[in-house]
């Protein structure tokens, strides 16, 4: 047993875990508040990567600009989608938004393919984050450390926002009991729009951050879509802490699977989910599920 090596792999599992955390944060917030199963989440992630590509490569701006701008751009797209399409279906059973977001996903992915071409775009690690750092136990790529750090900040940020700010309280109120909140004078529809925009922005940010490490192509969101849902379910719908914890655990679980039995590594996720749900029916800290 090479413990040193296993430790390096586990440390590396934090990267995968971070991507899962970033993606599932956006999804769980939307899930928990609006009850919307957003299949287009992966497509929004991909849009984040593509806007980053456009900003950095086509417009020749700095990567930092992309990190700041892209989430805003994708967030706005999300807001538009919510305003004009998704909100019209709130009164219907939740299955319909499922269908709608599915259609949106197809549309966005193919539109990008038509505009940019199917082969993908090159996106390399920005120069100032390139290279490796000696952490003592391993020489580790700087950029991947960056991913872990940013995810950490973001996770804490979202937690504080939802948990401790007034706006966050409004969102939580809307989630728990939208009718009462509405009766108390809170503008629910505006809150929902905001939350969806936030979820989209988080997905877009995940896309920007992941872009240098992956193949930027129109279907890149599909790689993560199902697993992100699984993470959200394990953590519990609507629970931010749950998403963070579940994301990290899943990242490590997959990595462990790779060490010990590679073919099984993705299946492990599903087994783990089945086990969790049997023991804790709503995930770690989930609230009453929609569709119940």
């Amino acid at each position: 047993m090479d413990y040193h090596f296993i430790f390096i792999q586990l440390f590396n599992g934090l990267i995968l875990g971070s991507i899962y955390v970033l993606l599932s944060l956006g999804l769980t917030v939307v899930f928990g508040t609006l009850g919307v199963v957003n299949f287009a989440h992966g497509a929004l992630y991909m849009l984040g990567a593509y806007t980053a590509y456009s900003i950095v490569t086509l417009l020749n701006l700095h990567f930092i600009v992309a990190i700041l701008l892209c989430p805003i751009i994708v967030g706005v797209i999300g807001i538009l989608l919510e305003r004009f399409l998704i909100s019209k279906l709130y009164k219907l059973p939740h299955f319909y938004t499922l269908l709608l977001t599915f259609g949106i996903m197809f549309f966005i992915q193919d539109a990008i393919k038509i505009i940019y071409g199917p082969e993908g775009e090159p996106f390399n690690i920005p120069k100032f984050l390139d290279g490796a750092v000696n952490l003592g136990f391993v020489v580790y790529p700087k950029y991947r450390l960056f991913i872990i750090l940013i995810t950490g900040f973001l996770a804490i940020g979202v937690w504080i926002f939802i948990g401790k700010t007034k706006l966050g309280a409004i969102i939580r109120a809307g989630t728990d009991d939208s009718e009462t909140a509405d009766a108390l004078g809170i503008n629910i529809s505006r809150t929902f729009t905001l939350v969806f925009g936030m979820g989209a922005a988080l997905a877009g940010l995940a896309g920007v951050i992941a872009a240098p490490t992956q193949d930027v192509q129109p279907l890149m969101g599909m790689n993560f879509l199902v697993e992100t849902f699984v993470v959200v379910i394990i953590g519990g719908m609507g629970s931010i802490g749950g998403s963070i914890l579940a994301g990290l655990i899943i990242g490590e679980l997959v990595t462990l699977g790779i060490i010990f039995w590679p073919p099984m590594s993705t299946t492990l996720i599903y087994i783990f989910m089945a086990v969790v749900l049997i023991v804790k029916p709503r995930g770690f800290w989930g609230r009453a599920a929609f569709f119940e």
Partner: protein
Amino acid sequence: MKIFSKYTFWIIILALLFFLCLPFITPYKGLASQMLVFAIFAMGYDIAFGYTGLLSFGHAAFFGLGAYSTGLSLIHLSIPAPLAILIGVIISSMIAFPIGYLSIRRRGIYFAMVTLAFAQMLYFIAFKWRSLTGGDDGLHGVPRPPIGPINLSSEVALYYFILFFFILSVILGIRIINSPFGKTLECLRENEQRARSIGYNPTRFKLISFVISAFFAGLAGGLYALLQNFVPLFSLSLDTSGDIVLMTLIGGMGTLYGPIMGAMALIFLKDLLSTYTNIWPLFLGLLFVVSVMTFRKGVFKELKERLLKF
């Protein structure tokens, strides 16, 4: 739901005519057969989903089980096709019991995810067990043994063979829905607490409904194996499960005829679109968006309701 008026009689005649002519209308006969196969699958799925409220993301498991069981029996056991299909149906229904039992304890989206998990596990097993299933090459060489004088190698003959099962399934489906059992399912879907208070055991009803839908899925799978002469691993995939959810939703859940027409329309459209353009996912996506925004309850359900208003 079904009031026997003279309208119904004419609708049935027209529908029969339509199905009898279908293989000659579609671009190729295999497409018509495929449409029926998925119609059976979707109809069965609607019993669990539309009538009982069980949203399953893992129904491809039963479709695939039926397909592989039927395929393997035909290859290794040299038995007549109907018997092989029976085997497929039995196996998928049997496996539905434990899967259903474990999943039904959970509700709503959590239930959906557990079914998804089981389907993924089955996919993994089929993928790894290459010596049995062919892995991701799929199971090749599924024969079509003749039934007495009828040679099933002809696509037309196979279509009518499948049509026979389709009609049987529809009749069976309608009887289930209209029976007291079916009514109880609807009652459960609307308000489970109340049903429980009257004395019904929701778990048992849900489980039976789940198994019934698996029965139809397995039947569809077995017919699919015959149709394709091979079983692709794709039959067990999440995409297939997703497709059936979409077909049911688009058609209009909780109607039986809605998912049937939804399935047929979707299969046909996918084929048509992919023949004429490379950007067919774009059109398909657009189609979903438009149809959901305009036909809120599902295309065919809304069409029927609007037509009835005349």
